[in-house]
């Protein structure tokens, strides 16, 4: 068996919360002198371990504040683990809060190039692909318009279209399946399915439990930063559902 696409070993992540929050250095120094600075470690994830093999679809469920988004950001390399280890093999398409770095003063075309380059593609590739990316998002007529005149739905479509334009080895999806209107949702979930069929590994966070049941072939229930249970999506999701109702 080849190495797993994603390997998470005893990973933990702490956010440091200053109890008496000091926004400025002056306040900080004053509080430091009064010995009032106390930090609270908030463990968003503690001792999480799992693997995702090639072509596997892992669904992650859990209540708000369970650490799902933190985990996604850790896999996307945005947040380095405080303890433990994360290994991701292959190209990654992080579909977390799409449209990072969109600049409202720039045109659709310029934003496609910028966003794609931020995702690690070359500007040349993005310039070549821009027309098709816009066409796929039904935005061909708006390519040369500053995106400040786009609606939020148009922005979301553009973000999705750029992020999924090339086929990644690993897809990290955080609640972005509900982008755009019904027709676009249809189109975007088709594209996701095609990527999965082509062998991409997927980690998927969704509050839509039916989606998780339908696409995932394994699931993890996360609560307060810990894995509660892991296994068959039908069982794990069922367990989670019973716990909330």
């Amino acid at each position, binding site marked *: 068996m080849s190495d797993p696409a994603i390997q998470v070993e005893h990973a933990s992540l702490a956010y440091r919360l200053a109890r008496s929050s000091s926004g400025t250095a*002056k306040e900080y120094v004053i509080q430091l002198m009064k010995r009032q600075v106390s930090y609270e470690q908030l463990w968003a994830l503690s001792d999480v371990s799992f693997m995702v093999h090639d072509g596997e679809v892992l669904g992650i469920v859990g209540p708000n504040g369970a650490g799902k988004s933190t985990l996604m950001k850790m896999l*996307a*390399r*945005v947040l380095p683990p405080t303890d433990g*280890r994360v290994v991701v093999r292959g190209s990654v398409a992080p579909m977390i809060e799409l449209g990072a*770095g969109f600049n409202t003063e720039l045109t659709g075309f*310029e934003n496609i190039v*910028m966003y794609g*380059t*931020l995702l690690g593609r070359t500007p040349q590739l993005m310039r070549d692909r821009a027309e098709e990316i816009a066409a796929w998002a039904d935005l061909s007529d708006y390519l040369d318009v500053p995106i400040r005149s786009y609606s939020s739905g148009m922005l979301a479509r553009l973000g999705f279209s750029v992020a999924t334009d090339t086929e990644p080895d690993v897809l990290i999806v955080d609640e972005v399946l509900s982008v755009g209107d019904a027709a676009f949702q249809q189109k975007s979930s088709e594209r996701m399915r095609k990527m999965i069929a082509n062998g991409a590994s997927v980690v998927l966070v969704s509050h839509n439990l039916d989606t998780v049941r339908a696409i995932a072939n394994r699931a993890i229930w996360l609560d307060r930063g810990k894995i509660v249970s892991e296994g068959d999506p039908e069982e794990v999701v069922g367990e989670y559902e019973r716990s909330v109702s």
Partner: protein
Amino acid sequence: MTSTYYDSDKARRPLVSEIQNIWINRSLIRLIVGRDLTVRYKRSILGVWWTFLNPLLTTGVMWIVFGQFFRFEIDGGATPYIVYLLSGILLITYFAQATLAAGSAIVNSAGVLTKVYVPPEVFSFSAAAAAAANFMISLIILLVVQLVTGVGIPWTLVLVPIPVVAMLALTAGLGLLIASAAVRFFDVIDFTGVLIQAISYLTPTFYPLSIVPDSWLWLIRLNPLYSYLSVFRAWVYQGTMPAAWSFTYMMLTAVVALALGVWVFSRSWKSLVVVL
């Protein structure tokens, strides 16, 4: 697509990793610099002319006050005061803009850094590089003034990119130092603004070095910006070679600032990103 293999255990090699990251992301940096230059003026009437107008206005007023009221003379009147003044103002403006922009770049890019993986130092470096590009554009007015006043353009102009790149290293390094603190405390940026103003007055931009009493010369010499300005002036209009110590001090401070900034920043990034 981010890199094809990520292991959080693989330690970043300080300095080496950062320089690699800058090189790997060079097309992204070019893109960000281009965006900074265009977006800044996109919704203004004067557009890119602000690049010229800003230093020209400052220089105009200071020329009246210090050139006409105070009657400062440079090299016993051999060098037109306006050339001396403008060259100083342009370089100091470059320093101030680059340092502040590089220092606030990380905080300003939080929206990107918390969503996709991009080596954070790329943003500080891009911000400083945008200021450098702006400086190169504004250099045109200095050259025009040199021609108009009969100073001319010496061949040493081709060496000017050396102090420009040294300044880029200095400001990127300082910017990373500031950014390490600014992520936690927003007022560090304001404080930096005050410091920059203070150090600008200690640089002979608008006054001749001859008015500085001997007992205070050490303070001017200690100021790294004086060495940058000396080298820049020597090559941009004097057509001479700068004093060896100026050049050495310039290169030394550039390398030290960059190394220190990168080192401090890469050590603290892991604890910074969670508060971003």
